[in-house]
């Protein structure tokens, strides 16, 4: 046996390969059996050895697989990507084992031992997660303290706003030139009115619901939505301002950007609720939700500006020259030549800023507004439901992940759609 393995003849390569695959499979099988079914094949060995045996066997197996080019596509792919040398083979094994070992406990906690039936804490008898908690609190996580029988108002408002958002895609060709105008000015105003009249109520026979009662995921959406559509134009203006030839405008833009980038968002939010009202006349009242939206917009606008500035700077100077030589003034040059190209380049950067913005919204908790993470924080202190923070946070994490993943997918789509050859 030893002889055949050390003798490097072509006919032996398949023995290497088969032996390698066999050893590798044994090692994986051992770990799988142990972590899924608690069957320990190597019971008879001393503890330490039985722990490391799969690692050693797998390592030798991978080494044998790697010895020679096999001509089998899938195996060569493995060799090329995760089995290039001893060190990589070792890391590969460790990662595979870690995944295999971690799967059964997390699966059983999340699914097999979990409870979802019933509607009180007592229904959770299993050792796993208590999804009953999420189920019972689901409406609160979605709508906050908004009265239950009025949830249709939030739903209707969102459907209307989303519908209006798609409206732009179906504009007739001769109206297409107003598209930017629609999205930058008209759409935000309509969306604001829809949300104000439907969700706030107070007129048209709808009951007034104060913003303090708003909350949950719907509040996350409202805050993110308005901040996103306002901070983008603001960032654009600031980015242009920072590159302006007029010193006053440049200094103001630089000052603005550096100021807002230099302060933490949480202090900005505190200021918006504590300091800001002091500067306003006594009889002037501004809702705290509006204040928060303005604060986040001003804050994220500075980040947007820097992302957009990166795009403006990466355009070759020749584009400016060409536009100027055709007699275009500052605004025409930027609107038709510079911005369309620069904004394409900054889609990844802008997406980054927007994702950060969405994930920053939980901070509005500091001024007493409870969006989804805030609702969780409230729910976990409810005496009837103590001890289920984990389930809640996993639920919120999944929701945030879905939102952010959708946004990033959309940004990839935009990137591909507007790709131009240089």
């Amino acid at each position, binding site marked *: 046996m030893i002889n055949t393995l050390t003798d490097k003849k072509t006919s032996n390569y398949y023995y290497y390969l088969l032996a390698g695959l066999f050893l590798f499979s044994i090692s994986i099988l051992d770990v799988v059996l142990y972590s899924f079914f608690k069957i320990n094949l190597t019971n008879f060995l001393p503890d330490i050895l039985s722990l490391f045996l799969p690692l050693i066997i797998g390592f030798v197996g991978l080494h044998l697989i790697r010895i020679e080019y096999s001509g089998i596509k899938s195996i060569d792919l493995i060799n090329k990507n995760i089995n290039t040398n001893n060190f990589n083979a070792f890391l590969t094994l460790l990662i595979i084992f870690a995944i295999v070992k971690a799967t059964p406990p997390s699966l059983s906690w999340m699914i097999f031992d979990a409870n979802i039936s019933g509607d009180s804490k007592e229904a959770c008898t299993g050792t796993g997660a208590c999804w009953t908690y999420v189920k019972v609190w689901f409406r609160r996580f979605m709508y906050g303290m908004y009265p239950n029988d009025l949830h249709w108002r939030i739903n209707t408002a969102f459907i209307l706003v989303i519908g209006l958002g798609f409206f732009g895609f179906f504009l007739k060709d001769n109206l297409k030139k107003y598209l930017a105008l629609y999205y930058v000015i008209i759409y935000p105003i309509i969306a604001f009115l829809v949300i104000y009249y439907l969700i706030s109520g107070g007129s048209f026979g709808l009951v007034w619901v104060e913003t303090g009662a708003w909350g949950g995921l719907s509040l996350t959406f409202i805050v993110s939505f308005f901040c996103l559509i306002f901070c983008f134009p603001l960032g654009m203006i600031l980015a242009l301002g920072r590159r302006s030839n007029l010193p006053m405008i440049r200094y103001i833009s630089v000052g603005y950007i550096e100021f807002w980038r230099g302060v933490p968002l949480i202090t900005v939010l505190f200021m918006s609720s504590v300091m800001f009202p002091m500067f306003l006349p006594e009889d002037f009242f501004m809702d705290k939700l509006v204040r928060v939206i303005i604060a986040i917009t001003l804050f994220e606008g500075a980040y947007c500006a820097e992302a957009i500035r990166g795009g403006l700077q990466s355009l070759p100077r*020749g584009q400016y020259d060409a536009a100027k030589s055709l*007699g275009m003034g500052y605004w*025409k040059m930027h609107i038709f030549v510079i911005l369309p190209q620069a904004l394409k380049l900054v889609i990844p950067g802008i997406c980054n800023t927007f994702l950060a913005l969405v994930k920053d919204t939980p901070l509005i908790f500091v001024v007493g507004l409870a969006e989804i993470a805030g609702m969780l924080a409230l729910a976990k202190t409810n005496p009837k439901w103590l001890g289920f923070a984990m389930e809640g946070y996993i639920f919120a994490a999944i929701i945030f992940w879905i939102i952010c993943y959708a946004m990033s997918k959309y940004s990839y789509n935009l990137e591909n759609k507007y790709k131009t050859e240089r």
Partner: protein
Amino acid sequence: MSEPIIKIENVNKWFGDFQVLKDINLDVGAKQKIVVCGPSGSGKSTLIRCINRLEEHQKGTIIVDGTELSENTKNIEQVRAEVGMVFQQFNLFPHLSILDNCTLAPIWVKKMPKKEAEELAMKQLTQVQISDQANKFPGQLSGGQQQRCAIARALCMQPKIMLFDEPTSALDPEMIKEVLDAMVNLAKGGMTMIVVTHEMGFAKEVADEVIFMDEGMIIEKAETKEFFANPKSDRTKLFLSQIL
């Protein structure tokens, strides 16, 4: 010579401490074709970029078609709309099709109706023989085709003067001819042209006058035949001996 369409008087320009243009005086008459040559760094590109104020001059006056170039933005835009420019690096707008590249400025600067602008653009594109590429994007065209499109784009503004800033320097040798042909055609059509180039064949064929610049000064200015037959200054002789 009739009343000059471009008058450059005592123009000086500095980049920081470095003086790029020193007391330039130049008159260009309508329909004149002038070739500017000289070693790199001699200020020839800067000079023609000053004519449509892509660069500012710090001293002296430049008058283009009766309008003096100054801080006045209105004047500058008016001059730029009358002066077409073709660049070494083509500088087409990569996000627009060839046709849109040509119609953008006429529509938005000259307020020409879209249909009329498209007809004009197709006419100009036919002149430079790329009308069949009209719906492609710049990235899909060869260098020579891009440069011809850039010429058509400038012509769509119906300029009185055309400036060429080393239009063939970034091209493969076999594409130079197609661009030069387009320029020769343009010259025969009676356009006022100022061309910065090292293509001496083109200069001999088209130019009325050749200007030799070095170190920010006009060293020699002479009629084309005279310039090539007996250049006066030693610097010019040396340059010509190296380039021809």
